[in-house]
Structures are given as C-alpha cells and as structure tokens.
C-alpha cells in the first residue's frame, strides 16, 4: 500500500453522512425563475452579454469571462431574460450581487453544443484548457477557482502529481461521495482529461476511509477500465483532511510552503465534481449548468442529493427536500464547520454550492463566551500548527502586527479551535475580523501611498520651481554684480589716474617752487 503521511491536529467528527445517502441522486425540478449571479467564482465577475427581453437557450453563454481569473456563466435552462439586477446572493457577508434573471419556459431547449472531443488526446493542452474555460467550469469543492487556470502547468514546469480530492471531510456533505458511487466512469474520464492537460506523471484519487462504497466503486471502475496506473489512496477520516494543503501532505508527504501554491511544487488538486464537469464539457460539449447539491440537516424531511440547475433559488430546493422552515434554525451553505449562513433563502444555488444544511436549534450552542483559560486545546487541534489562543489575544487587542508575527494568514479557518474551545470563544470570527482589518489597512495604505506619491511629486515640482526661480535670480544677481564689478574697476582706474594726476600736479607744483 502507498505510504501516507499525517498532519498536525485535526478532529474526529461525527459524520452525519448516512442521512443524505439513503436515496440515489435525484434530479431537482427546473424552477420558474433562474437567478444567475455574475460572480460565482474567485476573480473578476463575468459581464452580461444578453439583454433584458432576450430569449436564451440552455447552455448559452449569458455572461462572458472578464480577464484571466474569471469564468463565463451559461443559461442553465431556456427562457427569457427578465432582469439584470442586484439580488440577494450566497455570500458570507449577506450582501447582494448582480444577477441575470431568467423566466424559464419549461422547454429546456438546448443551444447548439460545442463539438464533442472524444479524441481529446490529440488536442493541444491549451485548446483543451480554452474549452474547459468556455464551459464555465470552476472548482466545485467550494472555493470556485477557475479550473482551466489550475490545468495550466505554466512554463516548463513538470507536474508530478495530480490528485482528485474525494476526501469530503466536512460532516453532512455527501455530494462527492454519491458522485463517486454513481459516476465513477465520468470521474475517471475527467481525471484522464486533466492529466492530459497537465501532462501529469501520476494520478491519485484520495478518499476518506468512511466512504467504503465510494472507494469500491472507484476501484472497481479502475480495474474494469484497466486504468490501474491511477491509485486510489484511502486516507484516515480526520477533519480537515480534505483541505488542499493537508491533503497533499497526507498523500504525498509534501508540505506546500506557506507563500506558495501547490502548482509551484508540482502538485495539482481538483475536486471530484469538477472532474465530472470537465468530462461532460470535453466529451459531450456541455457547459456547467448544473451541480449535485446535498440538502440535509435535522430540519430536512427528505434529505438527499439533488442535481440542481445553477441559479435555482434555494427555497425551491428546500421545498423539494421538504425542509420544515418552522423548526429550521439556520440555513447554511457548505458544511457545519466552514459553511456560512444564508439569510435570504431566495438566494440561488451557485457553482460552489456543495451543500445546503438546514439545522435545528439543538444543533447549535447558545452559551455565552467565557474568558480564555489558555488550556491550549486549540493548539492541539490546529491543522496549521498555529497558536490559536495567542492569535485570539492579539486579534482582540487589535494588535495586527503581532497577529501577523504569529502567522495569522496561515489560518485556514477550519473551525477546529472553536469547536474544542471550553470557553466557547468564536475564535475563527476573531481571525476573520483581524484579516479583514489588515486587508483594509493595506488598501488604505496603498491609497495613501498613492496620495503620498502624488503629494511628493507635487512637492518635487514646487521644489524644482523654487530651485529654478532661485537659479534664475542667482544668475540675474550675478549678472548685476558683474556689471557692478566692472563699474568698480573703472572707478579704481579712474581713482588711480586721478591720484597719478594729482601727484603729477603736486610734483609740478614742487618743482615750480
């Protein structure tokens, strides 16, 4: 068996996975209205290329990528664009974002698809990347980084290892596990396409050992397809094993330096769902218009996984999963450890919406925070090996220099420290606060730097003008002085002559006597 490494800290958490794995993946209804945010990924928001009133077809690009780090958005069903406006969207801050709103026509009429590329191996990797970019694919694990960028090794760099992340370490979430059980073939195809794009030497599929059905489904498919050069790496169930850098450490032993990307070390990690999306885009020409969403939690009567069109309002999905909105305490996008609360359930399902967790009151703690007693339990569980309680002191004291000296920005906000804190201090909240403050300060500093530069230049111009004026004055003065000096010389000569004259006159007088 392949050697595995371990990372510091982490937690054994109760999985709560079974509740959403009883039924196969169901297809969610196409809603009457689709809401497509322009920003569903890391990077620049896409810009709309359709007008209000325009009819669009399923799979048609409605917003184009803006710049390098961006991704286009496609109509996830056919219908008419009724608005391009600000709508509530899923965001940690609860803010609104610009969305393209489509009234669907229930026909789900597809646009003409890009030609399928069964023979992708003949394609140039860069053409392959463009195809994936045009399909609007971003990391479906939750971060939403444009996938085509992570398929570009850049320069002459050799990619040693391509890892598919099937860890799915957060409790409750099962969309990747279900995908592995139901679509191992598509996952493997996607992985092989990614391998071609990256020209990676070895391919691994990492799965936590609490998913035996997924492990056997993938392993069987690999054997059947005689793709045994792809290794399934079974890793211990330990949150946050699916965090990118922790996963790389676990399966390769490589510790990605703090200021570097995995790519710099010849490693690339992609999500299970992303691999399926890539295979669909390349092999059938279909852009990313749907994803698997786990709808689960104790307020859900029919928990399970749903294939939902991107842009489906969350309440539509909650209705299909029979969520009891009366007992629901919080609606969370993502898992309980790192997910964020959705305040408006008309917010649409995004490309990054892996899970909708509807909790009840009993799922949360309502006790007030006590003072930190420095027990150090947070230090024991921190997967980044930080000193969370020191970070807390400095964040609370707004001592951002010390926060950074204690490596605040290496915090991955996994929530382990808060989970074990006997004083129930919302530690992660303090770290986010400190990071945001530091970013704001840096922005301000940049602004003030800019202002200072302008000011300095202004001062410089004033100074230069002053110097020039002075120089001019000096020259003038010098000229004046010169003329004066010449005048003086004449005087001296005249005086000397006068003296000589006077002497002569005197001598004449003397001799005359």
């Amino acid at each position, binding site marked *: 068996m392949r050697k595995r490494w371990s*990372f*510091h800290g982490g937690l054994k958490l109760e999985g709560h996975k079974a509740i959403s794995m009883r039924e196969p993946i169901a297809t969610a209804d196409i809603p009457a209205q689709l809401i497509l945010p322009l920003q569903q990924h890391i990077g620049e928001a896409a810009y709309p290329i359709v007008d209000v009133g325009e009819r669009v077809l399923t799979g048609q690009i409605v917003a184009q990528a803006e710049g390098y780090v961006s991704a286009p958005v496609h109509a996830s069903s056919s219908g008419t664009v009724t608005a391009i406006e600000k709508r509530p969207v899923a965001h*940690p*801050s*609860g803010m609104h974002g610009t969305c393209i709103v489509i009234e669907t026509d229930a026909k789900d009429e597809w646009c003409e698809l890009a030609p399928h590329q069964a023979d992708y191996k003949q394609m140039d990797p860069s053409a392959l990347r463009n195809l994936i970019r045009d399909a609007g694919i971003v990391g479906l694990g939750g971060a939403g980084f444009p996938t085509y960028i992570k398929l570009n090794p850049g320069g002459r760099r050799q990619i040693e290892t391509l890892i598919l992340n099937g860890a799915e370490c957060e409790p409750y979430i099962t969309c990747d596990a279900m995908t592995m059980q139901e679509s191992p073939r598509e996952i493997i195809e996607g992985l092989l396409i990614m391998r071609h794009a990256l020209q990676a030497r070895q391919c691994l599929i990492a799965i936590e050992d609490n998913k035996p059905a997924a492990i056997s489904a993938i392993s069987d498919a690999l054997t059947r397809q005689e793709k045994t050069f792809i290794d399934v790496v079974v890793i211990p169930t330990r949150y946050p094993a699916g965090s990118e*850098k922790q996963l790389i450490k676990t399966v390769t032993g490589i*510790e*990605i*330096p*703090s*200021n*570097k990307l995995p790519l710099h070390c010849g490693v690339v990690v992609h999500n299970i769902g992303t691999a399926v999306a890539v295979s669909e885009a390349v092999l059938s020409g279909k852009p990313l218009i749907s994803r698997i969403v786990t709808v689960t939690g104790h307020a859900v009567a029919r928990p399970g996984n749903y294939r939902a069109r991107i842009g489906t309002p969350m309440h539509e999905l909650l209705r299909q999963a029979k969520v009891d909105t009366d007992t629901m305490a*919080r609606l*969370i996008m*993502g898992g*309980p*450890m*790192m*997910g*964020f*609360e959705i*305040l408006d359930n008309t917010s649409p399902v995004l490309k990054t919406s892996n899970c909708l*967790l509807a*909790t009840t009151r*009993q*799922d*949360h*703690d309502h*006790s*007030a925070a*006590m*003072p*930190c*007693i*420095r*027990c*150090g*339990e947070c*230090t*024991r569980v921190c*997967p*980044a*090996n*930080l*000193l969370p*309680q*020191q970070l807390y002191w400095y964040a609370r004291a707004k001592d951002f220099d010390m926060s950074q000296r*204690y*490596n605040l920005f*290496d915090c991955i906000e996994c*929530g382990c420290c*808060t*989970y*074990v*804190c*006997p*004083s*129930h201090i919302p530690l*992660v909240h303090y770290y*986010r606060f400190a990071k945001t403050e530091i970013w704001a300060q840096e922005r301000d500093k940049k602004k003030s730097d800019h202002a200072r530069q302008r000011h300095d230049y202004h001062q410089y111009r004033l100074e230069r003008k002053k110097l020039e004026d002075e120089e001019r004055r000096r020259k003038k003065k010098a000229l004046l002085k010169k003329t004066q000096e010449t005048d003086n010389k004449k005087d001296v000569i005249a005086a000397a002559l006068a003296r000589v004259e006077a002497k002569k006159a005197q001598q004449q007088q003397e001799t005359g006597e």
Partner: protein
Amino acid sequence: MTQIHTSPHTTFINSVGRMMTLVVVALIPAMLTYIWFFGWGIVINSVICIVTAYATEAVMLRLRKRPLWPFLSDGSALVTALLIAFALPPIIAWWIPLLATAFAIIIAKHLYGGLGYNPFNPAMVGYAMLLIVFPKQMTAWIPASTGTGWEINFFDNLRYNLFGDLPADTTYDMITQATPMDMLDIQVGLGKTVTQVENSFAQFSQYFGVGWDWLSLMFLLGGLFLIYKRIITWHIPVAMLGTIAVASGIAYLYDSASNPDPLFHVLGGASMIGAFFIATDPVTASTTPIGRLIYGMGIGLITYIIRAWGGYPDGVAFGVLIMNMAVPTIDYYTQPRVFGHGRDND
C-alpha cells in the same frame, strides 16, 4: 438587523465547567486516602476554603460588575479551594485556610482580572503567603493513622481548628510532627545520614512517608485520568517529575548518605499533586508543547534546589510561582513550526 452567525455552526464539546468538574473528580481518590490516613481535618479545611472561595468570588464579581452565575458555576473557585485544603495541615486554626483562600481569590485572581487573566496560580499564591507568615503552623502534620497508634477523631479535630482546644492530656507538640520531607531536612542538617533518619522516625516508610506514599499514588492516578480525559497533557508532569528525578539522582549518586534517592523525591512532598494538579493549571502554565516541557523542567529544578539547599522543606509552590513569571517569555520563544514554514526559510 438579523444577526449573522459565523462558522463553525456546531455545539461545543467542552466547557470550563466540565474541565473543572473532572479535576475535582480526579481529586476524589486522593481526598479519600487523605481522610483515611490523616482524619477529617481536610474535610473541615475544605469546607472553610470552599465557603470562603465562593463568598469572596461572589463579592469580587459583584464589585467588578460581572455576571455572577456563569463565573460561580465555572468550578474554578472550587478547584482553587480544594488545592489549598490539600496543601494545609489537617490540624490548623480555621482562619488560616480562610485567609489563604481569600488572598488567593481576591488578590491573586480578581485583582488581576479574574478567570483566565491571573499570571500566578491563585492556590499557590494563597499557600505561599501563609507559608511565609506562619511557617510553624503550616508544616506541622498529625502522624498518619496506621490503625494502631493515636488518632484524632472528627470532633477533636473540629474543636482544635475552631477553638484551639486540644484533646485532654495532650499538647500541640504531642499530636503533631514534622512531615517526612521536613524531618529529613532537619536531621540531615544535624549530621545524620538519610538511612539513620529514615530508620529512627515513625513517619518514614520504605519509599517516603507512611500514608504519604499512598496519597502520592492517588494524585498520580488522578493525574493519569486527567491526561486520558485530555484535560492536561503529559508534558508538564513528565518534565517536572523527570527533572526532580534526574537532579535528585545525581545528588544521590554523588553522596547517598545525605541525599535521599530519586523515588523519595518523586513520591515525596508535593511532587505528585504539584506535577499533575498545580503546575498544569492552564491559565498560569505555558501553552506550547516545548514551552510546557521547559516550564515543567524549571519547576522541577527549582523544587529540588529549594529542597536541597533552601530554607523550606519543600519547593513546589515557589517553583510554580517563579516559573509563572517566565511563562510569557517561554511561550514567545517556543512557538511551534507553522505548517508550510520551513525550519530555516521562515
């Protein structure tokens, strides 16, 4: 405006109250053993300490305008009270435990900001203050009961502690004796060898002291329970006891006539309760893994130095208090290597 909850969206698995309760549970075997060998004095002292602790805690919380219930129910005052009771002799005037506890809670804890903010271990501050002011009363123990000799009953103990009345036909000196650690210190100082001392006085056992051996083992048992329950880590106890063993071992090898063996030092005095229950107080101890080793070693070393050359028979309390001062510095210089930060390219 709706309040946004932030992740993690879970219930907590731990609380300060739970941790303190487990510490109290871990002290139960030692408490029962103490009662068995030294009578009911510790119960009397515990009651005085606990009542004083909660009374002063409540007054201080009120004065500092803090909510009473969350802090009175956190159990920290209870632990402080019990540790002071364990440190005091069973036969002692009632106002001494009262003063020690009041000093611990008012001065050492609340004047520094209450739970979590005190740099010095409150129980040890209270104990050390009394030890300095009343050294004689603080080091006179009653002999351990062996089932054959004289024993003090609950009422006689209570009468002495409350009113200073001794049982008929006894004097204070008759019913008390020096602790084994103290006795050895005195007698070796008078020129006797360790073996001579151990053979000629009743309070010594094969390892350390009659009754004391069992008490130490019960503290060890409680300590292992706390490690198992993840309330404390092994670092501080191992470093502290290890250092005491090594330091006393070197002295023993150098001159076994005037230096007792390492087992005597590890089982003896306050080594065990100190290592597992006092030095491990989270608030005042170092918090990094390496820091905890240094902290524990420091306490062990200071304890041994005071035992061997200092003016007091034992040195755990002073060891803890001195190392408390060093904690911020230790923590600063022992930060663990952060994930993704190289050992040299940091």
